[in-house]
C-alpha cells in the first residue's frame, strides 16, 4: 500500500496533457471547434471534454461478487444565443465527429456567421484535492483487505448482523473546458466512496441500515476513517432500529443532529436559491434578496473550497473558479447560486456553480458543499429545551418542490425526546416543512458544526452531481412529523 505514484499524473496539468497527447486536442483544435460552434452567429460557445475512468468492487456474503470498471470519454458543445442553448455531444473524439457536434449545437442560431472566438488562454486554478495515494494505483488485494476489515467489524458488532454488503467505488475524471471568451481550464477530479450496508435479523424482525463516506481523495481517506468505524456505524443503526417504536404523527419540535441534517439546508434553501429558478421566477425565493428568509441565527454558505470535500471543485463545468458563497447571513438572503446564463441575467459574476453530470449534459446552477455555520448553544442545552419532540440523526435523503418550497427529508435514525431527554429510537419517518417557514423556526443553533462524510448525490432535471452537506445541532420549533402515532 506504500508505492509512491507520480503525483504529477493527478493534476490539472495532467488533464491538459491527456487530451493533448491521447486525442491531439490542442489550442488550434479548440479554436477551430469554437469557430464551427459560432459559425451561425451564436453569442457564446464552450467545449467540455471529459475522460472518466471508474471502477468498483461489490462485496457480499463475504465474497467479491462483481468487479466492475470502464472508461467513458466525450465532448459536449454548447452554443448560446441570448438565453437559448444549443447542445450536442459525442463520445467519439475524432476531429470529424467533434466538428459535427459543434455544427449541430450551432444550429440554435441562424444569424449567419460570427467573427469567431478569441484564442484560448490557460488559467491556473487552485488545487483543493491533491491526492496522496491514488486508489487507482493500489492493488485490488489492498482494497479487499479494507473491505474484509469492514465486513468482520460489522459482524462482530452484534450477532444479529447476518448480512453485510460492502462497496468500494472510485473514479478519476479529467476535464478540459474551453470557451469562446478565451478561457481554458483543466481539472483532475478524483472521487472515492466506501459504503457498508448491514442487515440485522432478530426472529422475524429485520432491519437494514447503511453508512459510508469518501470524497475527492485517495487511500489516505482510511487513515481518519478506518473501515471498521464505518461498518460499526451501519451495524449500530440497524441494531438500534430493532428497538424502534412507531414514530409520532403531527406538528412537533425537532432537534436536528449535527452533520447529516445538513440535508435540510440542501432541500429547504439550497435548491430554491439556484439562480435558474429565480431568473424564471419559479422559486419561492424569487425577488427576495435582501429580505429576512430565515431566523437571525442562520448563516448558510455554499462552499466549493473545502479540501477534499465530495462537493468540492477547483473549477466548475463552465471553467469558472469554485468559491465560497454566503447565501444567507444572519437570516438575510444574500444572493443566488449562479451559472453563466443566470449571472448574465442578474448582472453579477458567475459564482462557480455551473455544474453538469457529464459531457452528455449542459450545465445548470448546482450546489457544491452547503452548510450552516455554528452558533452558541451546546447540543445538550438544545435537547433539554424540548418537552416532547423528535431528535433526527441520520437520513436517507430528501426532496423539494422549488415552486412552493415544501420539502421533505427521510429520517433513518431518530429518537423521541421526552421531557428534555432522548429516549426511544423510532421507526423510519418522513419530515415535511416549508423552506422559509422552517428556517424562520430555527430557535437554537449548536456550536458543534459537523460536515457530513461524503456520500451525498444531488439530482436535478435528471442530472446527478456529488455534493456535501453540514450543519451543527439545530432546534426547529415546529415541523410536521409523518409517523403513525397520534
Amino acid at each position, binding site marked *: 500500500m506504500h508505492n509512491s505514484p507520480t503525483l504529477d499524473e493527478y493534476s490539472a496539468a495532467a488533464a491538459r496533457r491527456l487530451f493533448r497527447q491521447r486525442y491531439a486536442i490542442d489550442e488550434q483544435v479548440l479554436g477551430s471547434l469554437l469557430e464551427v460552434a459560432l459559425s451561425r452567429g451564436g453569442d457564446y460557445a464552450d467545449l467540455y471534454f471529459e475522460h472518466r475512468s471508474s471502477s468498483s*468492487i461489490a462485496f*457480499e456474503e463475504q*465474497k467479491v*461478487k*462483481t*468487479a*466492475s*470498471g470502464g*472508461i467513458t*470519454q*466525450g465532448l459536449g458543445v454548447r452554443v448560446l444565443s*441570448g*438565453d*437559448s*442553448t444549443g447542445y*450536442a*455531444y*459525442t*463520445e467519439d473524439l475524432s476531429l470529424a465527429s467533434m466538428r459535427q457536434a459543434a455544427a*449541430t*449545437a450551432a444550429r*440554435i442560431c441562424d444569424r449567419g456567421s460570427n467573427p469567431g472566438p478569441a484564442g484560448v488562454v490557460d488559467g491556473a486554478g487552485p488545487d483543493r484535492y491533491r491526492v496522496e495515494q491514488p486508489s487507482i494505483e493500489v492493488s485490488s488485494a489492498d482494497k479487499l483487505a479494507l473491505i474484509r476489515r469492514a465486513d468482520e467489524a460489522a459482524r462482530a458488532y452484534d450477532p444479529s448482523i447476518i*448480512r453485510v454488503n460492502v462497496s468500494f467505488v472510485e473514479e478519476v475524471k479529467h476535464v478540459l473546458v474551453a470557451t469562446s471568451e478565451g478561457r481554458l481550464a483543466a481539472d483532475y477530479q478524483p472521487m472515492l466512496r466506501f459504503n457498508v450496508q448491514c*442487515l440485522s*435479523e432478530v426472529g422475524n424482525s*429485520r*432491519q437494514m441500515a447503511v453508512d459510508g463516506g469518501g470524497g475527492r481523495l485517495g487511500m489516505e481517506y482510511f487513515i481518519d476513517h478506518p473501515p471498521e468505524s464505518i461498518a460499526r456505524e451501519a451495524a449500530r443503526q440497524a441494531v438500534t432500529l430493532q428497538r424502534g417504536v412507531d*414514530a409520532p*404523527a*403531527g*406538528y412537533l419540535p425537532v432537534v436536528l443532529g449535527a452533520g447529516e441534517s445538513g440535508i435540510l439546508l440542501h432541500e429547504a434553501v439550497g*435548491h430554491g436559491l439556484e439562480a435558474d429558478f429565480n431568473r*424564471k421566477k*419559479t*422559486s419561492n425565493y424569487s425577488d427576495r434578496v435582501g429580505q429576512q428568509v430565515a431566523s437571525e441565527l442562520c448563516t448558510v454558505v455554499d462552499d466549493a473550497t473545502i479540501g477534499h470535500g465530495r462537493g468540492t471543485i477547483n473549477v466548475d463545468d463552465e471553467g469558472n473558479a469554485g468559491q465560497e458563497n454566503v447565501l444567507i447571513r444572519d437570516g438575510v438572503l444574500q444572493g443566488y447560486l449562479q451559472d453563466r446564463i443566470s449571472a448574465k441575467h442578474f448582472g453579477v459574476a458567475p459564482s462557480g456553480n455551473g455544474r453538469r453530470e457529464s459531457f*452528455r449534459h449542459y450545465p445548470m446552477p448546482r450546489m457544491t458543499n452547503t452548510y450552516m455555520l455554528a452558533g452558541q448553544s451546546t447540543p445538550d442545552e438544545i435537547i433539554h429545551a424540548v418537552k416532547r419532540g423528535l431528535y433526527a440523526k441520520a437520513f436517507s*435523503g*430528501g*426532496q*423539494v418542490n422549488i*415552486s*412552493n418550497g*415544501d*420539502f*421533505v*427529508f*427521510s429520517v433513518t435514525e431518530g429518537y423521541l425526546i421526552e421531557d428534555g431527554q432522548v429516549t426511544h429510537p423510532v*421507526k*423510519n*419517518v*418522513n*419530515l*415535511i*416543512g416549508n423552506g422559509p417557514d422552517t428556517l424562520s423556526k430555527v430557535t437554537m443553533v449548536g456550536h458543534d458544526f459537523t460536515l457530513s462524510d461524503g456520500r451525498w448525490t444531488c439530482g436535478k432535471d435528471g442530472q446527478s452531481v456529488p455534493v456535501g452537506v453540514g450543519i451543527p445541532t439545530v432546534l426547529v420549533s415546529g415541523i*410536521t*412529523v*409523518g*409517523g*403513525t402515532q*397520534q
Partner: protein
Amino acid sequence: MSARPPAASSQAPTGFGRAAADELLTVAEDVCRQARTAGATDADVLVGSGTEFSVTIRRDEVENIVEASSRALGLRVIKDGRVSISYSSDFTPAALRQFVADAVERASISDVDEAAGLPDTGEFGSLDAAGLELYDSRLASVDAGQAIELARRCEQAAFAADARITNSGGAGFGRTMGIRALVNSRGFSSWYAGSSASISAEVMADDAEGKKRNDYWYTADRFFDRLESPEHVGRRAAERAVRKIGAKKVPTRAVPVVWDPEVSRTLAGLLAHAASGELLYRRATFLLDLEGQAIASPLLNLVDDATLVSRQGTQPFDGEGLVGRRNDIFRQGQFVQFLLDTYTARKTGRASTHNAARGTGGPPTVGTTNLLLLPGASSPQEIIGSVDDGFYLTELLGFGDNITTGDFSRGAGGLWIEHGQLTFPVAEVNVSGNLKDMIRGLEMVGSDVDYRSATVAPTVKIGQMMVSGL
C-alpha cells in the same frame, strides 16, 4: 427537485434498421469471441446505440435544443465462476482489444460464485420484435421547427386554459430512438429497435399567500401519432396547478386515502420492488416467506408483462436473452411469486421469471417491464364519491419507505374529500402506514387505465392511513 415527467428525447439521421443492427451485432459478436479467446468461460455483450433529441421552450422562447447520437457497450465476463462487468464507448478495434483484455483480467478480482453465469443453452429466446410495434421510424422526421411548435402550443394552451396560470417552468418535446443488441457465448444473438416520444409542460399559479403552486402533465408513447395533443397536455397541467391554489395543512388523523393514478403508480412500483429476487436472497423484503399466501385485499392484481404490443416497457427478450413474458406478482390478493433473473433464481432455488434488467454500465439486475396494477370495476368518481371524509392524494415527495419492514412515510399533497366531493387543496402533510396493512386495506380499485409510462396503475382507495399535518 420537484417531480417532473420522465425526459424523453432523440434523432435518427440514418434510422435503426437491419443494417445498423448488423453493424452492432458484428461488434458484439467480435467482442464476445475475443473474450472467449482471452480466457473467459462465458461472456455476454450488450450494445446500445441511439439518438436523443429534445426541445424545451419557456414563455414562448426556446430554452434548449439538445441533439446527439451515442453508443455504448457493456461486457460481462465469467471466468471459472468469477464475474466482471466492463463498459466502454470507444469502438475502435485497438481500444476494444485492450478493453477485452482488461475485462478478463478484472474477473480475477472476484471470488468464485456458484450462482453466477449465463442462463443455460436452450433457455434463450425472443418474441418477434416487428410484431410488438416498438419503433416508429416516422419520429425521426420531426424536426426542431415542429418540435418547437408542439411545445409552444402546449404552453400556450396552459396559459389559455386559466387566467390564474401566471408562470411556466417550460414545455417540451422529446424523443429517443435506438437499438439494443445482445450477444452471448452460448449462441444468443438478437436485437430490437425502440422509440419513445413525449410532450410535457409544467406551469404555475400564485395563491393569496404568495406561494407558487405548480403542476405538470405529459403524454408519452412509442408512436408519434398516438401522443395526446399538445393542447390537451397544456390544459391538464393548468387544471392540476390551479386546483392547488390556497392549499393548506389539515389536522393530523387517520382517514381513507384515495390515490390518483400519478401516485398509485408509485405504490405498484414499491410492491414490485419488494417482490425483487435480490431482496429475497438478501432477506431484505417484507414479502419474505409470504409466497403463495393471501396477504392483500382480493382486489389486488399486480402483473409484470413484457409482451404487450407497443407499450413503453415491452421487450422481446430480457437483459440476459430470455424471452419476454407475463408474470403474476399478486393474483386476487395472493402473493404469487418473486421476480427473478438468472442469478437470483439460482441463489434461491427457483427459475428465472425473465426479469433481468440491464444497462451497458452494470450487471443484470431484477427489474420490471410493463408493471400493471390491473384495473377494477369502480370509476374514479365512484371511488371519490364513496369517501365521506378523507384525502385524495395526487403528489408524493421523498423516499421515506423501508422495503425491509414495509414502513411507508412520505410527504404528500392533494385535495380533501368531504361527502364524496373534492373540496379544498392540501399541502405540506405526510402520509404514513405500512405496506402490509395498506395492501390489506385496499378497498376499491378504479377502472381507469393510462399507458403513458411503463408502470400503469388506476385510482385506488386504501381504507385508512395516517395523514399528519397540524
